[in-house]
């Protein structure tokens, strides 16, 4: 599916594990930008907006590289954005259970491959900036994106691919290491 901003109810059709592309305006925000927006308000129209967890490298008004940062740092700072109408978050590594609940019926979390900063920048250009005093990594950069390749990590129905993988990993771990290590009957008598 190809998504174009501003987003609407089409995000409700997505399911965790779906692959999508996204084009249009996105806004970067990391820890400091979230704190500033909570204190002073959101500087862009949040209705249908997309927030990108990213601290890019910018030089001479040009986006040099712009891959995703670890989204979980924003777990406790995200609710106000969804309440204000933000329809999608882009980042890496997934988010906590409180965010999964906040997204329910309203918005989705889209995973962009971590570290793919050159790939991301090749499909983006800079369109503006808010809170530049926060510094290069923490400012809110306005970016025009063209066909970003994304995976739906958390859908609007409680589906969370990261959590499903984590649960499977936990089961694997316990099977491998926590089983009773007394040798089996056959082994002892061989």
């Amino acid at each position, binding site marked *: 599916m190809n998504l174009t901003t501003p987003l609407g109810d089409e995000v409700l059709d997505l399911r965790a*594990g779906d*692959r999508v592309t996204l084009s249009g305006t996105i806004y970067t925000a990391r820890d400091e930008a979230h704190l500033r927006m909570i204190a002073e308000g959101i500087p862009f129209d949040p209705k249908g907006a997309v927030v990108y967890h*990213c*601290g*890019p*490298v910018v*030089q001479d008004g040009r986006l*040099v*590289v*712009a*891959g995703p*940062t*670890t989204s*979980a740092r924003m777990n406790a700072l995200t609710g106000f954005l969804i309440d204000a109408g933000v329809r999608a978050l882009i980042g*890496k*590594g*997934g988010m906590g259970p409180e965010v999964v609940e906040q997204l329910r019926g309203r918005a989705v979390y889209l*995973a962009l*491959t*971590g*570290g*793919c*900063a*050159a*790939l991301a*920048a*090749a499909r983006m250009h800079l369109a503006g900036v808010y809170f530049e005093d926060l*510094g*290069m*990594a923490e400012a809110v950069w306005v970016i025009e994106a063209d066909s970003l*390749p994304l*995976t739906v*990590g958390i859908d609007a129905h409680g589906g969370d*691919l*990261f959590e*499903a*993988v*984590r649960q*499977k*990993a*936990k089961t*694997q*771990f316990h099977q*491998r*290491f926590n089983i009773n290590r007394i040798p089996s009957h056959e082994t002892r008598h061989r």
Partner: protein
Amino acid sequence: MMANPADTMLSGALADATERALAEAEIRLPSDVLEALRRAAAAERDAIARQELSNILENIALAGERQVPICQDTGVPVIYLTLPPDIPFSPSLFEGVREGVRRATVTIPLRPNVVDPLTRENTGDNTGAGMPAVHVTPGDRLTVTVLPKGAGSENASRLGMLLPSQAAEIPKFVAETMLLAGGRPCPPVILGVGIGGTFDMAAALAKEALLLPVDTMDDYEQELCDAVNALGIGPMGLGGDTTALAVKVKRADCHTASLPVAVNMQCWACRRATVEVKR
């Protein structure tokens, strides 16, 4: 104190070498890491994981074409120097490295990542109190090796003071570190494991293990790697066969009552480069 001309020349040469090594490390992945990623992409069975690995390989190619850093977290530089017997161990070595880091921050460019730990005020040039870390060992030639270390993976690292009777628990400790980390450190990862020494040495060994080529693993490293990959966390924590590209181990002897074990987590962008200092 006035620096003597030989010192100033050495410092300048070291700054040049540090800047060049950083540019090489930030823009191009070492061939052994690239090869490991290609092998993983060819062997991966999960469709989402294959797409993630293909994005990573495309990203590496694009960084080379555009001459830009592979990842926007250009890390904090960790520096290893080898020092031949005829060069004095002097403060100008450290000043040369710092100057190289400052220049690289502008010329590559690098994201300014170094801040005061409490006020979080950014120094703006990737140097600061005690930063970059510079480790010096004796050698035949004067070389500078850089290992730019991103925070996503560094933050998922772990150190345990195991009991001497718990050597068999090391694979569990390593796999548990990955389980706790999940997708946060940008898997597929490379794990540097330090075993033995003291509390601080184990961590230093774990980081040094990340300098080792990943194209071979001994039986013990393979056992640890298999235990990690069995978790199925996959690229970016989205599931799949490829969680770790390699596990590398460095050891030191230790106190009879201790068993320090450190796991230094490294994202797929295992950036490292060595440049010999011309003098």
